[in-house]
């Protein structure tokens, strides 16, 4: 069975089907969306069982498409793409359960969510640059509509800014892949081939140009300072589910690109520029943390912490590129990939938490909140868990990831690793401050009557929180799969 192709095709087919559902069944769109997301989860589980952790990209499914320019339907997995695909499906299930726009989920919303899910899976599983790029652009279109239709007050402006910024940001990627196509001999869009036989084996002018074309495109997506300016606007106006998907899944496209393209295909160039890029990651991490510290809007605050956490990923990948020792490289890279997954889970809970309070009070301003723990104990506990996970508390998902990044970096750039640790202090300060202001202390009278989380909210958030704990307590759950990604690094080894 072509499990991977089916995982992509089923959500897309369901997306085409959703608008045709009869109006008489108001719950049908949500049921369809849940079903069409559950199947890929099963298929990916089968794939996980079949994954040989001793190998790199594997389980290739291939079909001719445009042989003249060597475009083909090529999908495959390694540990990195598999765990990110599973993360994608899990977050989509949570978002479909939570809903977006009018309730129950409308046909349009179901169609857009499924389109976004199918194209995101296509992006992570694609091993053909043509498919990779098309999937990338389709996610932009679907996300544009999710924000523009169900976002906040200035949704159209925010949707447009998001769309234009990331579309223009995708152009360097397009340039880069065209360059790789024309330089490779024979010309190919096959990403596996481009990893096995890199088009550039040095860090010369051509390689550097292509490297930075890809890097800038992915850095906008990730986002890395100073390419992050689209992020706060998009997040503040996006609906809750939109923010969850944007931060949980779509940002990972950028960091996935760092590893899959910049690291695996253009390794020597990455090694040459590893130090400045690690410093850029460090600046990004601190910038995100400090700007988040200055926010009073809970959602903006959470959005800025993404920049902080994605900065760590860049530090980890750069350290892996610079590492001369195989073990250090693997530790740093494993940490970076693990951080993508952990951050995806944690940020999803954080945005859900911000959405829950927004829905109840119509505001997310931290100074207007206080003593929420008393009327809403479950909500308070969930928030505390997410906050502690986000600041890297041992036993929760982000701790093993960040620890590995630091250990890997320590071997290559001890100074950077040492400074990075202080970033955690800043994030700890900002999360603890919010916790203290909004949840502890006396409850103002107007907040005393708030009801705690309902069934729908629990269904969406508790499984994610459970995964945060599970991955934190037992990292090998995902780490064994991830390690296979770093086994096979093309030109690097």
């Amino acid at each position, binding site marked *: 069975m072509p499990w991977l192709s089916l995982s992509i095709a089923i959500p897309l087919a369901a997306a085409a089907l959703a608008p045709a559902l009869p109006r008489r069944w108001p719950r049908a769109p949500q049921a369809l969306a849940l079903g069409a997301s559950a199947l890929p989860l099963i298929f990916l589980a089968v794939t996980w069982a079949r994954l040989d952790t001793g190998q790199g990209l594997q389980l290739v499914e291939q079909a*001719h*498409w*445009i*042989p*003249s*320019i060597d*475009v083909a339907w090529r999908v495959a997995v390694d540990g990195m793409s598999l765990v990110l695909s599973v993360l994608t499906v899990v977050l989509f299930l949570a978002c479909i359960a939570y809903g977006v726009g009018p309730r129950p989920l409308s046909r349009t919303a179901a169609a857009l969510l499924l389109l976004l899910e199918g194209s995101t899976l296509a992006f992570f599983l694609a091993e053909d640059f*043509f498919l990779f*790029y*098309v999937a990338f*652009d389709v996610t932009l279109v679907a996300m544009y509509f999710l924000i523009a239709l169900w976002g906040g007050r200035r949704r*159209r402006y925010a949707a*447009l800014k998001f769309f*234009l910024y990331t579309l*223009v940001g995708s*152009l360097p990627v*397009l*340039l880069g892949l*065209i360059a790789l*196509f*024309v330089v490779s001999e024979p*010309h190919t869009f096959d990403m596996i081939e481009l990893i096995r036989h890199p088009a550039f084996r040095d860090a010369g002018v051509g390689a550097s140009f292509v490297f930075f074309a890809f890097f800038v495109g992915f850095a906008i997506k990730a986002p890395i300072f100073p390419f992050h300016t689209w992020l706060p606007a998009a997040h503040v106006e996006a609906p809750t589910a939109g923010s969850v998907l944007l931060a949980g899944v779509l940002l990972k496209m950028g960091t996935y690109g760092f590893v899959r393209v910049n690291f695996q295909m253009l390794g020597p160039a990455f090694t040459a520029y590893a130090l400045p890029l690690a410093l850029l990651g460090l600046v990004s991490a601190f910038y995100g943390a400090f700007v988040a510290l200055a926010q009073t809007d809970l959602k903006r605050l959470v959005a800025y912490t993404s920049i902080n956490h994605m900065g760590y990923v860049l530090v980890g990948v750069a350290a892996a590129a610079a590492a001369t020792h195989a073990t250090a490289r693997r530790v740093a890279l494993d940490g970076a990939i693990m951080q993508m997954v952990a951050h995806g889970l944690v940020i999803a809970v954080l945005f859900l938490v911000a959405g829950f309070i927004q829905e109840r009070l119509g505001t997310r301003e931290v100074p207007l909140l206080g003593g929420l723990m008393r009327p809403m104990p479950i909500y308070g506990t969930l928030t505390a868990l997410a906050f502690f996970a986000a600041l890297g508390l041992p036993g929760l998902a982000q701790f093993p990831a960040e620890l590995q990044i630091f250990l890997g970096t320590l071997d290559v750039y001890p100074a950077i690793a040492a400074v990075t640790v202080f970033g955690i202090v800043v994030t700890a300060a900002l999360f603890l401050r919010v916790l203290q202001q909004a949840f502890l202390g006396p409850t103002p009278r107007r907040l005393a009557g708030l009801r705690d989380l309902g069934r729908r909210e629990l269904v969406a958030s508790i499984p994610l929180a459970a995964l945060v704990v599970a991955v934190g307590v037992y990292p090998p759950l995902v780490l064994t799969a991830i390690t296979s990604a770093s086994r096979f690094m093309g030109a690097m080894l």
Partner: protein
Amino acid sequence: MTPLLAAAAEQVKMLETKDISDLADLAPLLALLVAAIGGLGLAMALPRERQRLVAAWVATLHVVAAGAAAGVWAIGGFRSVMGGTYAVDGLSLALTAALGISGAVCVALLRPAVAGTDREGELYAMLAATTLAAAVVAGASDLALLALSISLLSIGSFVMTGYLRRSRRGNEAAIKYYVYGTVTAAVMVYGLTWWYGLAGSTRLAAVGAALPGAPTAVVIASSALVVVGLGYKAAVVPFHFWTPDVYAGAPAPVAAYLSVPPKLAGVAALARFLLRGLPGDLVGWSTAIAVLAAVTMVFGVLAMIAQRDAIRLLAYSSISQTGFMLLAVAALPHSPAALRGLIYFFFAYAASNLAAFAVVIAVRREAGSADLGAFAGLGRRHPWWTAALVLSLLSLFGLPPLTGFVAKLAVFTAAIDAGQAWLAVVGIAATVISLYPYLRLIAPAVLNRTEPRLPRGTRSAGRPLATALVVSTLATVGFGLAAQPLLAVGRHAAILHEAPAALPREGS
């Protein structure tokens, strides 16, 4: 009698005596001829309210011509016919197929615009004659035939441009087109007389055999004159200046027509006459064309930025697209991938450009203007038109998986294979810049929710226009997603090469 006229007379004599079996290979041209002559007869015979039958006749025969081109390719293969004056080969057949479909689409675009006017049927007949001329230009391998067919192409274009007799801008456009067109055609014919003088024959194969032995300065000068005339037809910078004024002054569907068949025919003739007339990159013409390509791409894109009128914007867009086609022409002597790229580009450009024009024509009919402001709120009023506009413009820009991406990739690859990587870099830079002007047209349509006040009694698109819109948009997407068949056609194409030894000896 001048030598050229004498040669032409000789050709006519040869045509009369030539084996009738050649006619089967010329079936596509015959279909277009029947379209033109039959169309004229129908136009005269039918009353004014029945003139749509002429449109149907001409459009159908255009499609038949395209089918015949495919049939000749499949059955007959490539050969030189009519005493070696016309090449039935990959370039001419593929282009004839593209011209047939584009011509039919243009008839559908024209019909709503000219329905009920006097001389409506004659306009369709004139369009058929012009397409015929373009198809002859595409395969002409004889200097006299080229001069003749370019003249016919020009006359048809002038008449169509000035169709609206009462429009001052239309008249100005027609006169401008006519004056510049005849002057550049005369310059080209002058260049062709030099070639004739050097070769002693009007046959392109003879020219190709003679020019390598001729003095370099003479070859350069005469070839430059030929490039002027063909470059004018194709709207190559610096012979492009007529394009925006003529497109804006002519009826919009005629502008759509002018942007496809005459241009593609000009590029095809340029490819054939340079490759076969100046064999093996003689006097470095490849580099000269590469420079023209670079200038045309960049100039077209930069000039697009300043436009406020959608038709003028598309005019400059078509100029820059010519530059990308020239990129493949420049690579012809050095890379086998060049012809494939050129032929695929013809189809991609025709589909995307006609789709974009179709939307602009529909908007202009409704809002009375093609100013960028008229597109505000289009997404709310006409989501399908907007989708077509976005797809066609992004295809012209070159976004995967639309056909424009494959087309640009194919010509860039050819340029790099030909050792002209710098040209591909210029092309990529021009492409990147072009996103801005294309987005300027897309943005108001997609974003603006304010409804512009429409004049009362606005007309809907009408069925022919809608059909043209759907066909060209589907082609824009389909040629991209299913690019393989067209790329395969391009790969098997060839520009016929006649050995000089096969030439008959001609008395001088």
